[in-house]
């Protein structure tokens, strides 16, 4: 049935993970950082689904990817709420300005 080999999938996951990490590291906008984190989650999901073939009967990989999604959803909801709160307080979501928010 499936003809997709494991390596390309894992490499794709690695690329996505690195891009997500890059976004997390380099971006100054808090929401873009959040997007980077979502990307990292997705890379992890990809790996989980790919490794699902280890024990296809148990579906551990897929189930855990669903759990990861649930956590991601919860995390993003809370993170966005925090970002909005930060925005209300600092009038900016620029991470650098938040860090030294009081004196800028």
């Amino acid at each position, binding site marked *: 049935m499936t003809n997709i080999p494991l390596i390309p999938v894992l490499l794709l996951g690695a690329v996505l993970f690195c891009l997500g990490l890059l976004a997390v590291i380099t971006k100054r906008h808090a*929401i873009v950082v959040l997007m980077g984190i979502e990307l990292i989650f997705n890379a992890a999901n990809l790996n989980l689904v790919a490794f699902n073939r280890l024990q296809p009967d148990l579906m551990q990989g897929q189930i855990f990817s669903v759990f990861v999604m649930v956590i991601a959803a919860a995390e993003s909801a809370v993170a966005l709420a925090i970002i909005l709160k930060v925005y209300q307080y600092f009038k900016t979501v620029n991470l650098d300005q938040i860090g030294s928010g009081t004196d800028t």
Partner: protein
Amino acid sequence: MNPVLLLFYVFGLMAVGAAAFMVATKNVLYAAFGLLITLLSLAAIFILLFADFVAVAQLMIYVGGVVVLILFGVMLSNQVQGKAVQSESVNRWSGSLVVLTLFGGLAYLILSANYLVPAAPLASAGDLPETKTSIITIGIRLITNFALPFEVASLILLIALMGAAYISTEEKHD
């Protein structure tokens, strides 16, 4: 080259391209739509990996929920001033360096690791369980083997819901 693999590469390239666009663009909204495309491509890849439930869940949770939330967040946290929402980058060189190094390490690991699963799965279809869809298995597993994580996840969701609602409530000073 079989069509499934071709599709995988196409969607993989789309995902990588959109993710790269997300990192590269300065416009936050474009970044969000880049993320959207990545997520959709990944959903497609999930289907190719026989994870249809995960794919639809991906659509439902990420596309219907997270991206909408992010878009909402962008809109609510920026004054509309006639120009697109910009996001500058910092640590560009050092960040890229670190990420490249990491990717090198990961790629090395992936390529050199010895997998317990066959790199290419069993070619004969007969060996695979005759399930049309993964959802029945997932459903059964969720309420048997994974009942506790399932309940915990629901609890986390509830707590996150309440927390988010509480955090974003404006305090009333009177």
